[in-house]
């Protein structure tokens, strides 16, 4: 807040406990609900035809079907998540396959290129620097709170990059392609920030 910030007369707000305050990025508020945001209809989960691939540019490094994916080492994490529409949710529990595990499975110990484009069913895309996907920072999540991920929340599988605003954690994920050049994804082309760090309040283009 700076000196010209207008005071909203009569507003006092609902203060949060100090213990949590450190975990809530600026401009965010806590919710215990799990709001759903997506640009269009929810796809129907189809585990029979589900495929997920990892690519180095246009070259496919590996493609997994649902059974093969389920056979990979599973990782559990409990993290806080932050949506650009200003809600945050603490201690959410996820299970899935970490991107480190996927790279290992294709014989790589680091991403083959500096940027990643994530593609989803329905054509949604988002971009993330490759280094934000590794070292335990991201996974392809298939379970939330001990249950298979519901379709509204991206089931059967979504990307989870909890340290960035949640639109980066693309739902209904089908492919990650590593690229030499950064390519803004769906919301990034529509005015949202290219990186999306909640702690720096990188909500929109120019923040």
């Amino acid at each position: 807040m700076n000196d010209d910030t207008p005071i909203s007369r009569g507003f006092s707000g609902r203060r949060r406990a100090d213990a949590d305050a450190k975990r809530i990025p600026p401009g965010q508020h806590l919710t215990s609900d799990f709001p759903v945001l997506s640009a269009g209809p929810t796809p129907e989960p189809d585990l029979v035809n589900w495929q997920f691939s990892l690519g180095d540019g246009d070259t496919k490094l590996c493609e997994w079907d649902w059974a093969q994916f389920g056979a990979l080492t599973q990782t559990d994490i409990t993290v806080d998540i932050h949506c650009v529409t200003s809600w945050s949710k603490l201690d959410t529990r996820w299970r899935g396959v970490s991107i480190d595990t996927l790279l290992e499975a294709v014989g790589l110990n680091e991403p083959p290129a500096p940027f990643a484009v994530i593609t989803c069913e329905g054509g949604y895309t988002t971009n993330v620097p490759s280094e934000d996907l590794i070292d335990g920072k991201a996974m392809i999540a298939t379970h939330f709170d001990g249950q298979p991920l519901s379709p509204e929340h991206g089931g059967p599988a979504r990307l989870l990059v909890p340290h960035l605003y949640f639109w980066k954690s693309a739902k209904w994920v089908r492919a990650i392609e590593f690229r030499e050049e950064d390519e803004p994804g769906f919301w990034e082309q529509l005015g949202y920030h290219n990186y999306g760090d909640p702690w720096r309040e990188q909500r929109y283009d120019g923040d």
Partner: protein
Amino acid sequence: MMVTDTAAPRPALRWQTAEVLDVIGETARVKTLLLKLPDFTKYLPGQHVDVRLTADDGYQAQRSYSIASAPEDKHVALTVERIEDGEVSPYFTDEVRAGDKFEMRGPIGRYFVWTVKLEGPLFLIGGGSGIVPLMAMLRHRAAHASNTPARLLYSSRTQSDIIYRDELDRLVSRNDGLAVTHTLTREKPAGWIGHSGRIDVAMLAETGFTVDQRPKIFICGPTGFVEAAANALLAFGHDRALIKTERFGPTGR
């Protein structure tokens, strides 16, 4: 075929001070704020803003609200529904009065937008305060005397919860190709000629356009409502790429 109008303006999203010019009661739980802003002219119907409230000790809270006014309207308007035990919405519906100030920035979002430049019929489906961005589209359509065929299917709890009811009636009476269908989920008042109950497949079939007409479809409301409407439209065979959704509010779980 254009499915969205991407030629939207991109002003820098800086915070500015909004001053409340007037507060209009819409229903018992909903108010519209008319705002004065130093620099806020270019927006598209369907876009939203972020608002930030600051208490006198510096505590702040931030939320998103759709813009209710059309770009052609004299003032920027937000329409806010009071959420029981909410932090921000009760301030707007119960406390705020002319002369009060808060911060606002936008417009935001260039996806859930419709302008008269887009061809083809328009099918709007709203639940509760989900009407707000859809109303901006209808106001814009009327401001341009557009006769693009348009239909609104609007679900409210009770008759007295219908937001913008009189204005919707007036828009329909222009006979310019707009039809509005109401449905009430929690009462069936005497003499009610609209539908009753939640939006279902039959209601969508009756009020909407055919798949061949390739309507642009905008659905806004609570999550369960949006899910049900979007899934029914897909089941009819409407093209996924023509269906845009915006969800406010709780998941109900």
